[in-house]
């Protein structure tokens, strides 16, 4: 038993985690004919809290409340994994990335979410506000504009052979490459 838990506490390899994520798609279809997609929850939150007479938010979000339960579950899952399934080992990072980040003063690898970038104190720095507020705005605006995010397009859309989802996925990747390689170095140096 202990051995099992020790194994589970290691980071899971891609060939275990990937298929499990893939199974979420048939699981949601089986549970209630629901299409896997997470960014829609952000729209439902808008519709429920601040519809402000905008037609895009005038619909019966209560019919989609399963999506909100699903994201509440994700939050709980993150908590459970952090409490019970983490062995506390430092995050291993590619040496080239570690070298680059050291140049920006990022040297701690004790959390999957680097506290030197994402913390309450960092909110009051230029790089923190750009990454959290700016990044958040782009994630919300971009995913709705694209009609979905990595779950709805890159996984659900590709799995059901939707070519618009392939277009979206390629643009997600292109945007990520541009940000990580050309814009982020500037933000991190602030």
């Amino acid at each position, binding site marked *: 038993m202990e051995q099992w838990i020790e194994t589970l506490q290691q980071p899971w390899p891609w060939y275990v985690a990937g298929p499990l994520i893939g199974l979420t798609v048939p699981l949601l279809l089986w549970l209630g004919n*629901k299409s896997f997609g997470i960014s829609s929850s952000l729209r439902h939150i808008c519709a429920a809290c601040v519809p402000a007479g905008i037609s895009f938010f005038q619909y019966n979000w209560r019919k989609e409340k399963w999506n909100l339960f699903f994201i509440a579950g994700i939050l709980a899952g993150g908590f459970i994994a952090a409490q019970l399934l983490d062995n506390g080992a430092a995050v291993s990072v590619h040496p080239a990335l570690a070298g680059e980040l050291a140049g920006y003063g990022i040297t701690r690898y004790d959390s999957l979410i680097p506290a030197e970038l994402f913390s309450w104190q960092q909110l009051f720095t230029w790089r923190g506000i750009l990454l959290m507020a700016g990044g*958040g705005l782009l994630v919300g605006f971009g995913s709705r504009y694209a009609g979905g995010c990595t779950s709805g397009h890159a996984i659900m859309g590709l799995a059901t052979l939707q070519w618009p989802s392939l277009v979206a996925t390629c643009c997600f990747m292109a945007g990520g490459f541009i940000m990580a390689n050309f814009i982020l170095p500037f933000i991190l140096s602030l």
Partner: protein
Amino acid sequence: MLKYLLAGTAFGIILYKAELISWFRIQEMFRLQSFHLYGIIGSAVLVAMAGVWLMKKFRMKSIDGTVISTAPKQFSRGQIYGGLLFGFGWAATGACPGPLFAQVGAGAGVVLVTIAFAVAGTWLYGKWKHRLPH
């Protein structure tokens, strides 16, 4: 609704243990320094594809008795412009929407700020939708 809460919980645990919620892994992916996330997304798509294909082939029903169906996605130029913008945000925050929620659960409370701005971004899209090219 409990079943969706539980499915989400399982999904959140997977996101954490797959290190999909790690800002570092996302950076490695976009710098081509690691195969990890490509392997995850690739194998997830293949398994999901096989699952949906089998369910449709055998005309499986969901547990509430409806025939399994998936909706087609309509193309719009939003998938290009919005996709690029989303990609910028993905690499900056090191998370897409699912992992943002898992990060909060994992103890990074400040990510609630990121989520609040993601909600604001979604709201701004709704407000400006009719003026944007689609």
